């Protein structure tokens, strides 16, 4: 576990974007490929608690960014952060996780497999040396590094007192773009994001917005986002189009709802849902159907 390296403030490889923020970390400990820092970075952060909607948005946004060659930076916490990393790892571009503790400690423990994947396919960063445990002060402090590395920060889902709002504040203070994913106003986990929008953050209405704003759209590496589409015939039947249309129009719903809306039998709807899921067009989770593509 101790095979990590250090990067000093005066070293040549130290990222410029980070050098000029307030209180740049004097030493960075890292594991993985340091050249990743040279790429265009965007932070995708959010709360530990996450709804289906948040997980979906984090995963797909990161996936889309990765497909366009953008390095996704996040904090590897539970919830939104984990899904941002997972989405990015599905794409061709490496991802960066900035930790609030020493690199020899994996926190949260459930992300051990994820941290290994990131070390193999990207970069694990921390300003803390081995053996330092995360505290209530280290996590907010590392947020300045997340925002400092990136040209833009996207807050996917945040409650009223979420730590990701600190990241957004840091980003604004460092003069970087702040995006927030808008949500329903009656949901606790969207209040933070909606407040950010009220206070001047850009609402993320289309994933592509951020690419256009940063001028990154030209650097498309792959166009096919879908890995499974070729294994099941990608052309859609009539019923599939009907169900997908209903799901895209009405947001997430149960199989019973979909059957009622499309007029298909519940059994037929169930089969169609599985087909659509295998084609990567929807997710079926906790009994609810969620559209996979915006």
């Amino acid at each position, binding site marked *: 576990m101790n095979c990590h390296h250090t990067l000093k403030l005066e070293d040549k490889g130290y990222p410029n974007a980070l050098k000029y923020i307030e209180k740049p970390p004097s030493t960075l400990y890292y594991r993985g490929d340091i050249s990743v820092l040279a790429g265009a970075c965007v932070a995708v952060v959010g709360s530990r*608690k996450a709804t289906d909607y948040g997980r979906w948005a984090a995963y797909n946004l990161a996936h889309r960014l990765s497909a366009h060659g953008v390095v996704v930076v996040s904090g590897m916490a539970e919830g939104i952060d984990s899904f941002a990393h997972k989405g990015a790892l599905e794409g061709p571009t490496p991802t960066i996780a900035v930790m609030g503790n020493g690199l020899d400690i994996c926190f949260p423990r459930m992300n051990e497999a994820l941290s290994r994947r990131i070390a193999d396919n990207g970069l694990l960063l921390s300003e803390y040396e081995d053996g330092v445990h995360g505290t209530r002060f280290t996590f907010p402090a590392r947020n300045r590094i997340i925002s400092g590395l990136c040209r833009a920060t996207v807050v996917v889902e945040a409650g009223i007192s979420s730590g990701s709002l600190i990241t957004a504040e840091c980003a604004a203070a460092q003069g970087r773009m702040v995006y927030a994913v808008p949500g329903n106003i009656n949901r606790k986990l969207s209040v933070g994001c909606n407040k950010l929008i009220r206070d001047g953050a850009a609402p993320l209405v289309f994933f592509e917005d951020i690419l256009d704003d940063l001028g990154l759209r030209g650097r498309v590496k792959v166009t096919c986002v879908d890995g*499974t589409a070729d294994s099941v015939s990608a052309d859609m039947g009539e019923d599939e189009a009907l169900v997908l249309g209903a799901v895209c129009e009405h947001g997430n719903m149960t199989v019973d709802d979909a059957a009622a809306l499309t007029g298909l039998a*519940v059994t037929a709807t169930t089969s169609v849902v599985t*087909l659509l*899921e*295998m084609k990567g067009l929807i997710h079926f989770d906790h009994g609810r159907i969620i559209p996979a593509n915006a």
Partner: protein
Amino acid sequence: MIASVTTATLCGFGTELIRVETDITQGLPQLSIVGLPDMTVRESKDRVRSALMSAGHDFPLRRITVNLSPADTRKEGSHFDLPIAVGILIASGAIDPEQAAGSAFLGELSLDGMINRAEYGVALALGLKEKGVKAMFIPEGNIDEMKHIDDVSFFPAGGLGEIIDHLSGFKAIVPTVFHAPACGSGCLGVSYGEPDWRGDGAQASYGFECGDFAEVRGQERAKRALQICAAGRHDLAMYGPPGSGKSMLASRMPSIMPPLTREEILEVAKVYNIAGKDPYEGRAVCGRPFRAPHHSVTATALVGGGCRPRPGELSLAHRGVLFLDELPEFDRRALEMLRQPLEDRFVDLSRVGYQSRYPCEFILIAAMNPCPCGYYGDPIQECRCTAYQRRRYNARISGPLLDRIDLHVHVGRVEYSELEGCASAGSSSADLYKGVARAIAAQGARGSAFTYNGDLTPDDTEKYCALGTESERVLKAAYIAYGFSARQGKKMLRIARTIADIDGSGDIRPEHVTEAISYRKPSDILNTGGPQ
């Protein structure tokens, strides 16, 4: 003269034929019983003495030896009183031994010569019938519960005097013989009995009323899953917030299950009898048991046990439904005990001298909340649990246990408009049973012995669940997309077979496969997964 009278004793779940040998010799007056009698049997000599004298007979004032053969089997039960009394009568020359030959005797005597109900009557009578005994003298109190045992002459008697009169040719007891109804040939789906309880011609003979599925609004997907379970004997796990109708759905399961066949009725009656319960109590309307043990149940109460082993809840649910509500609240040790019986469909209990095997072919229906507060994944109510709490809660159920459950379905909250009933009431039990009956008929037509799709062996799965090219392609894609194990893949095949049977389709079509796949184990029950 040595007299020999036939009776039987319980030996775990089996029955052993016992010969009661009686010898009367010169010597000091005494009655000794040998051959591993337990306390109840040992005490029978005092009951026998008084009962004989109350019935108007002398008790021989000589040395009487009673041997229970085979001598190395433990004998238990108070039903040895009657055979011992008859043995003494024969040995003393009061009764012609020819009269008692070929018959078995069961019954507990009271001091006034009356015969009390024998506790394990059904189990013993079944065992005796298996061993070829065609005539049985039983207490009057037991005659009703014998109604499903055919081709045996039962001689019910209220007192010892009646039996003595019969055996000495003074006044015969009229034998009762039960006959199997003409249609009850043992094939599933053929029913007999009176009340037409489902309104579709299906009839059951007894049992408590359970509700109709029409009373559950919405939840069509969950109803469909239950229909598949009833049709192919698959196990089901339901996840959902409190109040979404999980228990309501499960309790209506018996209303779509086929009535028991005659053989099954006897199997279940035997289990209940040995458990010390009324052989026919606690059955649902189709005659099948519905057991819903509370989550404080101990491991022993669940699988069975005790120094004289008795069947537990698993066996009491034999041929019926075992409903475990609030699965994570059950004792972890008790739940782990489920693993082997779920695979093998029997429970082995070993005690000194013997091992007994209790059947437990039930449909398992497990219900649980997705997290401690119950609202994880709910579109309206916010979940209050941390990811850690949620993991801890779900980790109470081991992966291998969930892996053994065939179908998994989320039961979500029902919108008010659905409750209002402005939408149609949805499927009723009669609607759902039509599919079940089709599937039962299809399964019966396949192979030599009736096997539910849920019980198909790997070889039979390959034989009966062959896929066409298109279906094969869909399943292969699912293997890749969801990372199925070989066991899960086979499970999907069996579920798809049942769905095709419900449809009345000989081939398993792609839509059957995709529907089966939709009931797979959710990836995020044991970790907080998500789209991955």
